[in-house]
């Protein structure tokens, strides 16, 4: 089914199941520990042996020798795979760093060996007996040092310009010019990357934890040099991904290689201390923003330059991503530069580009409001563009309600009580401040397929290789199928994450919910037609409700159709290219800063979101609050510390890489506007999982400024960065 014109009125506009707050159908499994994650699947294949990965002790150079003899002779050891004895595996379009094999070392904790043993304890102990010698070579690890020579990214020959930024900036009565730093960040999902691999002849099955089943299947074929059709991926439950599990990583590659060598199924989970350097991360950025405005707040000049680094000198963190979309301004310039750094691989992490970009742009807007002596909400409203995308006038917004998000948010949050002058409100030892930020994140949608099947027992089974990474896919897919087939939710069973199922959009880029449900809708439309054909009516015009079908004056029970199956796929026509499909939010934060110690506590957080139809307000809200938490972490504590001498992330475990804990997070409020986006899909829904990380951190930063009068432009905003600028005490 191709979606080639904006949707008109359809069954989702009178929905009974879609759009209703619905507890997750997988909830009873997850809360009782019975949802099976990759490493736990004892039942899928017998004789599983344990693998343990050894990571490189240097960041760059080569292995000069590796002694694996003691490891091979250690108790319980079945096989040892050593990089020097292994031809480098292939690469895929999704990977930047080499995954395994050969003597070359490209980054710290790159996998260099894998020990397989009868037990976990034996594998781990034997791995520690491997002795490796290296020749270290020089690398570049310091973004600030590499910045001056960094070329433009993405093959750009020149910055993107519109009008004459330099002249307009020079002429503007009010300007700001500020540079912001965001650090490298880690996904730090709770479930480590994990895989069980098993071969049967040429056929390989990996039970793994992966967001993108089809990408993974293709990539693993390329990496291992085998036909992807001989590979099965199965990933029904994923313990968090945030972009870190979009791609095949060392766990899957080494489980496959080790399983071949051991002639046994092998299971491997990346050890937590290895994950931070072995896998991917969000690259650090340096962002310079210049804004010029008239004294009424109208922005006339806007420039955003971004520098980041990556191991191959491509695909960094583009902080300018939202800038062409958020605010009007006739004279514009954006430029994205990328340096080659020999740190571990940078790759997608939740809202790649925008998450870091908002931490700069939305603070710059606060600085501009301050310079203008203007309310920062008003400043944003003043520069809210009309129908056309400011940085790309060929496109228009499909549906944009940012102004409503900001106005309604300000009203709910009690924004009018905020003092414009910073450092004016205190309660005892606490300095109190409020901050606001706007949020924009693209709403991509991708083709997606599914299979739906009516079973003998009256159940409807949905099969798609879509994944649920905590996003609530199981439930929204069940809701969509129940709605379309006119069945109660309890009669729908959803099977996900198996590459034997029709290929879906997968989970990433906040496209999953909108895309996968549209695909399920397409399959259900085909099933309705098949039911109609079997029982003799037109499936498209019939009404499916309460387990029955009404076609004209005839009534059927859906069960009368017996066992039937239909595949369907939703694809998208070119008409969407005229539009910018986006999601919007107004984020509000109140903080208290200890005037003595500089400790900052978040007191209140509110996000008002404009993201089309909300399929399941319960789980969508969770997506937003979770993203707000991650954004708060980015603002206040998260940082992979680079040791530029050794070229690695020093704080590579969950004690040292601090993410927010319960005590850091207050009650959170989320409001969804009742908006629909007919350009997206028949369901008119958009994703929210990344919208929530675009802006809240900036609202936190702005609130700290409002509380203290101190502006910190280097994230995370830890107290050591502003202690000396706090008011004197005793």
């Amino acid at each position, binding site marked *: 089914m191709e979606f080639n014109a904006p949707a008109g009125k359809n069954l989702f506009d009178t929905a009974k199941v879609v759009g209703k707050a619905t507890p997750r159908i997988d909830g009873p499994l997850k*809360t009782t520990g*019975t949802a099976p994650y990759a490493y736990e699947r004892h039942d899928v294949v017998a004789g599983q042996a344990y693998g343990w990965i050894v990571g490189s002790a240097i960041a760059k150079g080569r292995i000069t020798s590796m002694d694996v003899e003691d490891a091979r002779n250690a108790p319980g050891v079945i096989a040892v795979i050593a990089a020097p004895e292994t031809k480098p595996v292939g690469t895929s379009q999704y990977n930047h760093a080499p995954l395994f094999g050969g003597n070359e070392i490209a980054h710290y904790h790159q996998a260099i060996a894998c020990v397989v043993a009868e037990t976990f304890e034996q594998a781990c102990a034997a791995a*520690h007996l491997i*002795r490796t010698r290296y020749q270290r070579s020089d690398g570049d690890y310091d973004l600030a040092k590499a910045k001056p020579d960094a070329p433009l990214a993405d093959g750009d020959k020149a910055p993107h310009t519109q009008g004459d930024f330099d002249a307009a900036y020079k002429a503007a009565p009010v300007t700001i010019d500020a540079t912001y730093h965001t650090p490298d960040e880690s996904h730090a999902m709770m*479930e*480590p990357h994990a895989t069980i691999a098993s071969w049967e002849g040429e056929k390989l099955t990996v039970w793994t934890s992966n967001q993108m089943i089809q990408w993974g299947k293709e990539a693993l074929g390329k990496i291992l040099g085998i036909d992807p059709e001989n590979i099965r991926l199965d990933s029904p439950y994923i313990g968090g991904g945030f972009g870190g599990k979009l791609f095949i990583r060392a766990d899957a590659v080494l489980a496959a290689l080790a399983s071949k060598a051991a002639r046994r199924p092998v299971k491997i989970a990346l050890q937590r201390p290895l994950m931070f350097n072995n896998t991917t991360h969000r690259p650090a950025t340096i962002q310079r923003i210049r804004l010029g405005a008239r004294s009424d707040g109208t922005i006339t000049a806007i420039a955003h330059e971004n520098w980041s680094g990556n191991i191959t000198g491509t695909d960094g963190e583009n902080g300018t991503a939202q800038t062409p979309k958020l605010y009007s301004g006739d004279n514009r310039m954006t430029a994205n530069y990328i340096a080659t750094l020999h740190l571990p691989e940078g790759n997608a992490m939740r809202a790649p580009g925008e998450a870091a970009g908002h931490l700069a742009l939305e603070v710059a807007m606060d600085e501009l409001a301050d310079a203008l002596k203007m309310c920062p909400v008003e400043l944003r409203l003043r520069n809210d563009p009309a129908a056309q995308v400011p940085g790309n006038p060929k496109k228009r917004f499909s549906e944009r309600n940012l102004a409503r998000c900001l106005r309604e948010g300000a009203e709910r949050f009690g924004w009018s009580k905020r003092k414009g002058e910073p450092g004016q409100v205190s309660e005892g030892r606490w300095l109190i401040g409020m901050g606001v930020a706007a949020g924009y994140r693209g709403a991509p949608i991708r083709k997606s397929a599914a299979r739906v099947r009516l079973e003998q027992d009256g159940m409807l089974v949905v099969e798609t290789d879509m994944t649920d990474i905590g996003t609530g896919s199981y439930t929204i897919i069940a809701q969509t199928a129940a709605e379309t087939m006119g069945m109660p939710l309890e009669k729908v069973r959803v099977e996900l994450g198996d590459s034997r199922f029709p290929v879906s959009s997968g989970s990433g880029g906040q496209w999953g919910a909108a895309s996968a449900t549209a695909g399920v809708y397409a399959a259900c439309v085909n099933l309705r037609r098949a039911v109609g054909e079997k029982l003799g009516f037109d499936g498209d015009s019939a009404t499916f409700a309460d387990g029955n079908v009404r076609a004209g004056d005839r009534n059927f029970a859906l069960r009368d159709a017996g066992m039937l199956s239909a595949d369907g796929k939703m694809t998208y026509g070119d008409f969407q290219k005229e539009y910018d499909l986006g999601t919007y939010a107004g984020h509000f934060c109140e903080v208290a800063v200890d005037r003595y110690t500089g400790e900052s506590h978040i007191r209140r957080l509110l996000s008002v979101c404009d993201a089309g139809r909300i399929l399941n307000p319960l789980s969508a809200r969770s997506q937003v609050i979770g993203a707000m938490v991650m954004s708060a972490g980015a603002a206040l504590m998260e940082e992979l510390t680079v040791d530029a001498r050794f070229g690695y992330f020093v704080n590579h475990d969950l004690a040292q890489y601090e993410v927010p804990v319960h005590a850091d997070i207050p009650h959170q409020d989320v409001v969804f506007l009742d908006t629909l986006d007919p350009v997206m899909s028949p369901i008119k829904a958009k994703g929210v999982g990344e919208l929530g990380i675009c802006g809240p951190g900036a609202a936190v930063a702005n609130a700290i400024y409002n509380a203290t009068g101190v502006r910190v432009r280097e994230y995370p905003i830890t107290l050591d960065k502003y202690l000396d600028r706090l008011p004197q005490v005793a």
Partner: protein
Amino acid sequence: MSDRENFSVSRREVMAGGAATAAATAIPPAQARAQQPPDTVPTMPVAFQVNGKQVKLDVDTRTTLLDTLREHLKLTGTKKGCDHGQCGACTVMVNGVRVNSCLSLAVMHEGDEVTTIEGLGQPDNLHPMQAAFVKHDGYQCGYCTPGQICSAVSVLEEIGKGIPSHVTEDLTGPMRATRDEMRERMSGNICRCGAYSNISDAMSEVAEG
């Protein structure tokens, strides 16, 4: 020579693994270098109860309680998030007290009573805390969830027993299950999906009975 002035990453050849990284305090490097891998692995019998059932095992002394549950008893509801006591995903109750099962050896639990998430409730027979998590969407990916729930149940018990916390204002007064108390006490259970606000709602509902 002072490392303060002279330490640098200049030694181009690097040796790592085996003896090179061994624990100097436990075994001098020279001794470790000569150490051969043992031919056998020490194992020991141990017996304890898990969710009311007696189990008897012969385990490698190195096996943690967590791996005993997950790999030997196939009770995979208890999760391994970090294996170093830094995340709380492995939380279980031992003799009624919550602990990180990753930082405890199975052989140290002779005669103990262990309760895991599977012992609290089952999909068709949810514990009130499990039901509250479902109702309030107190999770997303679900991986930290069993640990969160074991902790949540324990936290309410700990408050009931009058055990103070970092945020308790009056150490000698009665203890109340306030939101701040619960948040502080739950902080040993990291949820990267950020379901904290919802978990707080779930716990409050159970606390208020």
